[in-house]
């Protein structure tokens, strides 16, 4: 009986001690976990809040112009008549030019980095590409004004005109500032992101596949081509991500696109993009409707980049999962 009592006592003491330890652990842990949760949720709240703000602040313009806002070419702050078509056009065309130039180059660099370069060249080139991605866009724009645009005016555009001048895209005055120059600047700026993701995607393709191709007597390029074909959904994802960057790029485009709200056939003509009209007019916007219209342009831009980026992420994510499963 006596022994049993001692035994029971010790038992309860141990139990309560355990409880104390466990509960104290749990309490501080719960506090910390919820603290980190709070910050994680902050990010979600911010993104939702950004959507809400853009939507709310563009209300005046959305109510006044409706869907016609996207299809109207007019942008007149004197008559208070606003439409976004010219800016959508400028953004879309300059981004497409950028992709057409950046994609083949990026794939080439990625192949070079994964398949051809020795380790020193690989490190150097990927380091330089990283810096290319980190250079502020204001510097690209500045360089564009003083180096690229004059070079386009004096050399590239006349050359294009004399060889491909029969196509309307390459006709008209060669001003230097315009869609083509903006597209080239964008191409330089999005090459790093497309390159780095394509490189990762290529790395995820098992070496055994290329070895099998070599064993069957294929040349190096044929083996690489097969890897590229297998990686195509990942590369598509990289391309779309690059597109997202190009669409949202502001300063560099603003400085070289010419900032003229017009839709012309020629790529040499100045144009205007969604991001650059906001950058140029927002601080000096006249009246509530003007600001609201600019924010609606921003809302369109936000929607477009959101769709583009989500699509890219889904493609890249599903590709890497598939590659890991293989």
């Amino acid at each position, binding site marked *: 009986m006596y022994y049993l009592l001692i035994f029971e006592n010790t038992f309860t003491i141990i139990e309560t001690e355990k409880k104390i330890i466990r509960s*104290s652990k749990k309490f*501080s*842990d719960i*506090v*910390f*976990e919820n603290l*980190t949760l*709070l*910050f*994680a949720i*902050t*990010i979600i709240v*911010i*993104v939702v*809040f950004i959507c809400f*703000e*853009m939507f709310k602040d563009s209300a005046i313009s959305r109510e006044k112009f409706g869907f016609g806002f996207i299809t109207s070419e007019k942008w007149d702050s004197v008559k208070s008549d606003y439409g976004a078509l010219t800016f959508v056009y400028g953004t879309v065309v300059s981004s497409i030019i950028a992709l057409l130039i950046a994609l083949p*180059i990026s*794939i*080439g*660099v990625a*192949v*070079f980095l994964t*398949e*051809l*370069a020795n380790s020193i060249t690989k490190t150097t*080139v990927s*380091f330089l590409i*990283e*810096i290319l991605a*980190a*250079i*502020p*866009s*204001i*510097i690209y724009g*500045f*360089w564009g*004004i*003083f180096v690229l645009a004059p070079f386009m005016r004096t050399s590239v555009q006349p050359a294009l005109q004399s060889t491909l001048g029969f196509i309307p895209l390459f006709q008209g005055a060669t001003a230097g500032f315009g869609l083509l120059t903006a597209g080239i600047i964008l191409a*330089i700026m999005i*090459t790093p992101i497309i390159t780095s993701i394509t490189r990762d995607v290529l790395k995820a393709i098992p070496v055994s596949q290329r070895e099998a191709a070599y064993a069957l*007597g294929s*040349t190096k*390029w*044929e083996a690489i081509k097969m890897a590229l074909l297998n990686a195509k959904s990942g590369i598509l994802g990289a391309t779309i991500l690059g597109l997202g960057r190009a669409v*949202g790029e*502001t*300063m560099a485009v603003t*400085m070289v696109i010419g900032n003229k709200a017009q839709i012309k056939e020629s790529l040499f003509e100045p144009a205007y993009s969604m*991001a650059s009209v906001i*950058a140029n007019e*927002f601080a000096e916007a006249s009246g509530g409707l003007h600001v609201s219209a600019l924010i609606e342009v921003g809302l369109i*831009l*936000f929607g477009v*980049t*959101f769709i583009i*980026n*989500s699509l890219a*992420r889904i493609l890249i994510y599903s590709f890497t999962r598939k590659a890991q499963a293989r």
Partner: protein
Amino acid sequence: MTDYYSMIKNNSGRRKIKSRIMLTLCVTAAMLAILPLVYIFFYTTIQGASSLNLEFFTELPKPVGETGGGMANAIVGTLTLVGLGSLFGIPVGIMAGIYVTEYSKSLFANIIKFVTDVLSGIPSIIIGIFAYGVIVIPMQRFSAYAGGFALGLLMIPTVTRITEEMLKLVPHTIREAALALGIPRWKTTIMIVLRTASSGIITGILLAIARAAGETAPLLFTSFGNSFWSSSLDGPIASIPVQIFNYAISPYDEWHRKAWAGAFVLIALVFIVSLIVRLATRNKFSQSA
């Protein structure tokens, strides 16, 4: 399926030449991609270094027509804005990164990762509009707070991502060892896991800071800019990128030279930080290997 037999039977010399040509094109692509970087780097250095002197770092901008003057207020302004941004962006980024790797169930972690990706994909000009809407309008004036807030928002995704990546590199055995010694989970996370990953996270933060220092678009209508010393944070404040923009689109040669000097400072910052990050991560990988 490719018919490999006929591939081999085909003229292999032609295939080899094609292979050679395509591989040469890849090398050309690599050179072509680096060309603009080299050009921009040297051009900025040549244009900028000549007007880079002590005055540039200590003097206020001079009006048009007067020679001399510097960007001292813009340099201090950029430091202030980046500092404000860091105060907001770094804690949020690190804590969210910890939550995603250490606590979250996979579905919620994926949601947060997705939203972080969305945030990093939002064009910086839109972040500017947002900061304008939530800070400039209620305060009725451009302010350093608004600019810092915008920069902080832009830093969050980078910091979250890098924290996540670095915490993932910490082996599970280290966490288990700490927990087995009876150390509470939160202490394990802060004192052991975070400390192990700290060098990687710090380099990531450096990268985020360098990026934020070069941002222009979100500052145009949040911190705006001025040409004198700012005495308080709730008024407009100058910054290097906005100053470069204003100078670059001006017609004055003297201002262009100043802008090149500013551009040189920014490029040097980016270059040095990238180099540090490179060296730090290389050590990290060789240690783990």
